[in-house]
């Protein structure tokens, strides 16, 4: 149902998490076969994006840190992977 309690404008954080959720799904779809951690990462990001107030627990940050090899894309990684890892890293700050 319509929820008027969320302040305007669309919280940048909500839009950013929705963007990262889409990127994570795309990366999992394209690269999950060669990089299984990306499939797990998409699940984690999807859970975070759906959490109330988009809260991110320390354990989630730790899991993302591990799945992304400390936010380090593999050498030949594409732009989507790099954008995803950079966005997830920025969430820490």
């Amino acid at each position: 149902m319509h929820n008027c309690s969320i302040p305007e404008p669309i919280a940048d954080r909500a839009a950013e998490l929705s963007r990262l959720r889409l990127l994570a799904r795309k990366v999992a779809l394209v690269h999950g076969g060669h990089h299984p951690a990306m499939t797990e990462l998409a699940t984690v990001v999807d859970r975070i994006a759906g959490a109330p107030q988009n809260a991110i627990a320390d354990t989630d940050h730790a899991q993302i840190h591990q799945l992304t090899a400390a936010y380090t894309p593999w050498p030949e990684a594409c732009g989507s992977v790099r954008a995803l890892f950079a966005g997830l890293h920025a969430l820490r700050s």
Partner: protein
Amino acid sequence: MPSCHDHLLPVDLTRPSAVSILSGEHRVILQVITCLERMAVQATREGRIPTGHARSAIEVIRTFADRCHHGKEEDILFPALEAQVPGFGPTAVMREEHVIGRQYVAAMAAAIDADDVAGFVPAANGYTELLRAHIAKEDDILFRMAQAMLSPAQDAAILEAYRAVEHDDMGDGTHERLLGIADAIADVYGVERASNDPQTFALLTAVCGCHTGKA
């Protein structure tokens, strides 16, 4: 009631093509205009426009729906069809409706700036009504015709041109940023995200970013 277009096969949404990519984008546009419709209801009820949400919706409509999606239609798909059938009527009608849509969007933007509920509500409702009918005509008639008209080589060339729009004209990351905004608005207004459907998601990501699966 049977129509004269029933002999045309529905758009094949199981693979990226010149028309399926655009049909996938239609799902996102429908998602955003449903939000817009609910904003109009809210504005009528509360006597004020949900300004931030409405501005976000306008950004998605202007950039994703008009510049990117209608741009692909007007600059790539329609000319390909018009080259085969000079004076092709359906694309002329679609172009006219894009122009009318831009007028509604300009009216909504002006109403938002002026906090003019009486101006916003009819513009939002008019745009929503126009776009729903427009999308139905494209999905059910024009795209079916296009699917039958385009050769595999033409289809592949159009897909490549779409990729150039995403990368060169829109810029890498723009597509995902706008989809993120669209989904965030949808969450606020309780509208189903188009990207939740795996088939639509595959089409939405088919011409943006990486797609080789090699790296």
